[in-house]
């Protein structure tokens, strides 16, 4: 009950951190999706480039997120900027890879039919390829967003704010209530976002089956 009272008393701070966390991740994801989708589409035209790009994004992910943020500090100072850039870099792999495989897995006769009927390359990309790759793309976005929420927590370390603040402060002050509330709020956000996107994903899949 103690912890419940603690939560009620500090609800304002907690909500502020929650919305800070949410909008940091949202901003990063919008940028990440735009870049990832463009890169993912472009590399479907060149096998060699695809291999290189996918490899680079995979290696980016082996860098611990903590280290990625720390490396970005000397360049972008502390605050939301290195956090957002770090999340964007880190979440490229699931998005780029899923756009790429989503498009590559389309039955080639569908693309050929579109070409044979005189659709332009631009139209084929936006009217045929992207809609058909959508469920796979959404699955990638889902993975990326869940990763983003987790990274957003670690990003508190580079002064980006968000719910991670509560966890780090709790550890520093050995305040269990802060630690638990911080951890639970972060988990809740990740789970809710994941469930929501899973519904979107199922709808997109249903539309195609």
């Amino acid at each position, binding site marked *: 009950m103690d912890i419940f009272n603690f939560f009620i008393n500090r609800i304002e701070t907690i909500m502020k951190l929650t919305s800070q966390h949410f909008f940091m991740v949202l901003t990063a994801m919008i940028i990440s999706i735009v870049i990832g989708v463009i890169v993912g589409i472009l590399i479907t035209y060149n096998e060699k480039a695809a291999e290189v790009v996918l490899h680079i994004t995979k290696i980016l992910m082996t*860098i611990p997120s903590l*280290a*990625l943020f*720390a490396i970005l500090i000397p360049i972008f100072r502390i605050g939301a900027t290195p956090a957002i850039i770090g999340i964007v870099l880190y979440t490229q792999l699931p998005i780029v890879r899923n756009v790429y495989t989503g498009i590559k897995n389309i039955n080639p006769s569908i693309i050929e039919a579109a070409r044979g009927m005189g659709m332009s390359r631009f139209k084929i990309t936006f009217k045929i390829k992207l809609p058909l790759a959508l469920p796979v793309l959404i699955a990638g976005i889902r993975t990326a967003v869940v990763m983003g929420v987790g*990274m957003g927590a670690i990003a508190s370390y580079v002064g980006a704010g968000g719910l991670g603040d509560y*966890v780090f402060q709790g550890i520093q002050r050995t305040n269990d209530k802060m630690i638990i509330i911080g*951890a639970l709020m972060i*988990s809740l956000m990740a789970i809710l976002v994941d469930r929501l996107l899973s519904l979107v994903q199922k709808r997109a899949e249903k539309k195609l089956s």
Partner: protein
Amino acid sequence: MTDSGNVKKRKPVIKAVLIPLVLIFIGLSYTFYVINYPQDKIVADFVSYSKVFSLLKQHIVLVLVSATAAVLVSVPLGIFLTRPKFKGLANIFISIVNMGQTIPSLAILALFVSVLGIGFKSAVFALWIYSLLPILNNTLVGITGVDRYVMEAATGMGMNPVRILTKIELPIAFPVIMAGIRTAATVNIGTATLAAFIGAGGLGDLIIAGNNINRWQIVILGALLSALLAILADYLMALFEKA
């Protein structure tokens, strides 16, 4: 014919040895560079071979202990849950595990700290739970994914359940289980840097300390070594899987 066969075989062996050596070489040379050509006096005072290697050792111990424990628990658990008696249970577990996998690493670490306090123990437990989930998930998916007709054929030929498990299910599910272990280990190596926040040491110490004293050489040393470790681990396990 035999000659060309030998040539084909020899090449991957060279590559198999070469890539780990290159990774180790990169790590060693950067460590050498930071220690022998430090940015300034502060860096020189902070790093030494013995310090870097003891942090590296700590990191490896954290990962090895938690990952091994995770394999030892989740593979048998996965096998147990996929027995016909518990069929319903497997599906429930898959959804629980899926939800568990969405919980961010920092949150899990924090929750363990609130129970076990700061230190090595919390870090190992958190890493253990965090690697448990992908391995359990892949064991369940791998075994339940074995083609129904293959199972029927095996039963029809009079194989008993133990032989079906060891000769059919596990061999077919092996690549999927291995993929789970690989993912778990690579993610684990990155997550283990967070252990430094709760006083459990590891390469995260270099990143945090480097950041605190504002010395990029040290931050990058921590980042590079953990990234190389992750790539190396992934590579070695891929080799093991093929062998």
